[in-house]
């Protein structure tokens, strides 16, 4: 790891100001950033820890919306009961030690193509709230490790409309436990959403054909005979595009079944 300065600002305004410096990078749980720095894939001059910002922490539910502070850990999200499908997703990330440090804001900002939270945000129609604006999930994820965030923009919270039914099913890549493919399905006032992670070179995406079929009939059988185009799908040592396309169909059915 290259060396860097470390600071832990006490207020959001100070953190945003610190990130104006071009060499500065935000640090949340460090469960992605620290391994990245060890591999010398990034070379920030300064890390700005978000750990002291109380306004980024905690959960609250009201009016059918669950608001999760950006610095809330996976373990804390796993422990809430207002949105069970989201709790189950968080409880399946990595392992207990990773879940005690890793945060929802870090996961969304990172937008790893195999990460779990992007599927929950897109599959729930969540809103990503930053220090500057509110970004609908449909406009947030813009490609492999790319988001709509500006360099000095900090996610402060994520607002999830709580659906009537939802579930996330992931097929674990057995060594890393990231999603080889993961499918998040929800049905609520905003309609049916099907978000797929782990499968596309472009990162998380909505499966439009699956959504159309499930909107007409929210049952696993509704997905019979549908296929996913292998065009943008990832092919790697763990599985080819055809295998991932197949998994999307299977996992979407399982998610619908689990959502009930």
């Amino acid at each position, binding site marked *: 790891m290259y060396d860097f300065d470390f600071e*832990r600002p006490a207020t959001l305004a100070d953190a945003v100001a610190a990130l104006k410096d071009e060499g500065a990078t935000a640090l949340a749980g460090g469960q992605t950033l620290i391994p990245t720095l060890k591999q010398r894939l990034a070379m920030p001059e300064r890390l700005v820890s978000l750990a002291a910002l109380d306004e980024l922490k905690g959960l609250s539910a009201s009016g059918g919306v669950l608001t999760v502070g950006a610095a809330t850990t996976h373990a804390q999200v796993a422990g809430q009961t207002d949105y069970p499908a989201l709790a189950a997703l968080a409880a399946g990330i990595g392992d*207990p030690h*990773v879940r*005690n440090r890793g945060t929802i804001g870090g996961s969304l900002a990172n937008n790893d193509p195999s990460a779990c939270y992007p599927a929950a945000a897109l599959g729930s129609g969540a809103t990503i709230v930053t220090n500057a604006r509110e970004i609908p999930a449909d406009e947030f994820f813009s490609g492999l490790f790319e988001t709509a965030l500006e360099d000095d923009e900090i996610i402060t919270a994520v607002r999830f409309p709580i659906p009537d039914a939802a579930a996330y099913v992931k097929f674990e890549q057995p060594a890393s436990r990231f999603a080889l493919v993961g499918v998040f399905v929800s049905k609520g006032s905003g309609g049916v959403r099907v978000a797929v992670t782990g499968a596309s070179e472009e990162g998380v995406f909505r499966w439009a054909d699956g959504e159309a079929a499930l909107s007409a009939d929210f049952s696993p059988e509704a997905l019979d005979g549908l296929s996913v185009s292998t065009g943008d799908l990832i092919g790697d040592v763990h599985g080819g595009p055809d295998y991932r396309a197949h998994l999307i169909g299977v996992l979407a059915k399982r998610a619908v079944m689990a959502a009930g």
Partner: protein
Amino acid sequence: MTKVSMTVNGQPVSGEVEGRTLLSTFLRDTLGLTGTHVGCDTGQCGACTIHVDGASVKSCNMLALEAEGAQVATIEGMSNADGSLGRIQQAFQDHHGLQCGFCTPGMVMAAAALLAEIPKPSEAEIRRYLSGNLCRCTGYHNIVKAILAASGQDVGAEYAA
């Protein structure tokens, strides 16, 4: 260099560190607490598992400066006051829960975190909880047995070594 202070196994400690100094490095190299092992240094194996403010974490995936002011517990704090093995450690010895012992500090710290959360875990809960702690030697069976025993549960005949 920046000064960092924290409490480790009940003792106030401090030292000078760089921004990039890992908590595992601070514990091992600055404090000489080499019971915390570094296996992979990439956040995968769990050998470096410790507790920070009561929560289990991988100390190779945390900066020393992030632990400023924190309560840290390491394997050195797991023995009894008279230096004899603590309850979980003793169960690992009794049930042959280790061979080379490299993963053991992390396994014991993970087990302690599990038992704090779930005092009487099932076998399945134990196995799931250890998903971030890798062991190259034991095949996990005796580790699971040791944790069952440490939780005061019967280690049934099906677990006989």
